[in-house]
Each structure stands twice: as C-alpha cells, then as structure tokens.
C-alpha cells in the first residue's frame, strides 16, 4: 500500500460520485493524461459500485505511489461483505461485464496496470489496483 492513503467510506450511490471525483482530482494532480484520468475515475466507479451492491458498505483508499522515480495511483477497495466464492470465475470475461449480474472485475483489470484481488467467503473482498504515469 502506498503512503498518504486517504480513506473514503462507501455506503451509498452518492459515495460513488464522491470517491470518483477524489480519484479524478488525485490523478490530475499526479499529472495523468486526460484519458488516463477518465480511466482511473471509471475503474474507481466500478469498484465502489461493487461495494454498494454486493457488500453494502466498505472503503476505498486512494494513495499516491512512487516506484523507481515513477509516479502512480493506487486504489484499494475493501469490504467485509459476502466474499467471492470463485474468483477465477468472477474474473472471466462474459461472466462479469456489461450485464446486470457481473462484478465488472475483468473490465476494471483491463483499465488498470496492476490488479490484485483477495476474497474469502463470509469475510470480504479486497481489490488493489494501480495505474502508473506513462
């Protein structure tokens, strides 16, 4: 996890807008291009919505990163919801893209440079993803 992480509680659809806006501002501040700012904001939106829909409540943490002189942005989405029984299945395209049942996780992985997911049934899910400045 990067330093200076700021935590945003996620409970309602209004929180999705708030954290998306915060992510957009942080990405701009770090110098991301216009299209990468949009990509980061969209990925945050998908992750925040998963929390609201599947776990009811959780947090998103946004952090600046620096690795080898390169700046990046880290998004951590954390909940103590039902967890995902079959992560491999949830990460399959088609299972989870544009239609109502999916988690949108494969799409979110495509938007970001790095993507890690940990989930335990009954304990919750944590997704950590990063985007690096080009």
């Amino acid at each position, binding site marked *: 996890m990067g330093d200076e992480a700021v935590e945003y509680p996620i409970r309602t*659809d209004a929180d999705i807008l708030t954290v998306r806006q915060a992510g957009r501002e942080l990405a701009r501040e770090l110098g991301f291009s216009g299209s990468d700012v*949009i*990509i980061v904001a*969209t990925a945050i939106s*998908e992750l925040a*919505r998963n929390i609201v829909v599947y776990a009811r409540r959780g947090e998103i943490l946004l952090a600046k990163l620096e690795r080898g002189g390169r700046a990046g942005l880290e998004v951590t989405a954390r909940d103590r919801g039902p967890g995902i029984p079959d992560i491999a299945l949830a990460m399959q395209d088609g299972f989870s*893209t*544009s239609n109502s049942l999916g988690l*949108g996780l494969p*799409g979110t992985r495509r938007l970001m440079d790095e993507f890690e997911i940990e989930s335990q049934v009954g304990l919750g899910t944590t997704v950590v993803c990063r985007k690096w400045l080009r």
Partner: protein
Amino acid sequence: MRVPILKQGPYLIASVQSALTDADLLALRDELATEVGRSRARGVIVDVTVLDVMDSFATRMLRTIAHVTQLRGAETVICGVQPEVAFTMVQLGLSLEGVETALDLEEAFALLNRKLQARLGTGGHGR
C-alpha cells in the same frame, strides 16, 4: 442532480448537466418512460456530452432507457459520448449495442427526423 427534460416538437431532450448518481439515472429512466406518453413524443435524445465517466451501471441504464422508450413507441438516440469515454467503455467491455447513437445534438435531431420520416412514409397507409 436531476436531468431536465425539455420538449422540442415531437421530441424530448434529456440534457445531462453533471455527474449522475445511480438514483438520478433510475429517475431519468422512469421520467422518460412516463413523459413519452404524456407528451406523445416520437423521439428521445439523451445528451451525455458532459459525462466523463460511463461505467457499467450508466451504460446499462442508457440501454434500458432506449429499450423502454422504444416499447412506448419513441426512438431514443444517445449523443455526445466523448472520445476518451468511448475508449474507456471499449476497454471495460461496455457497449451501447442496439442503441442509436449520434455525435452531437445536431446529428441526433437529423437522425430522429430521418427515422420519423421513414416511419410516416412507409407506415402511412395512404393517409
């Protein structure tokens, strides 16, 4: 923020003014479904020029709006999807397949006018 719906001739124009919550999108869907009947509209334009995030929920709602208004007898055109937004949607695996789209408001009007003319032309039964 609620989306204002304006009537112009046979069309309704929903001009999105700012980022929308899920509740705003659901309200827009319901209002358009009702308003198409109340105003006997033949077409609906949803202008999303100001949206810089179109995630899976927003995309699904726009598709739903288009399908619901079509069942109510009006055609929907989504206009103003920005280039970076389109690129992000493709990467996410989202599409507006089965939904008419146009570059901007002007093109959306032109498209609806053509569709309305075609409908009157072929479905007029010599009226």
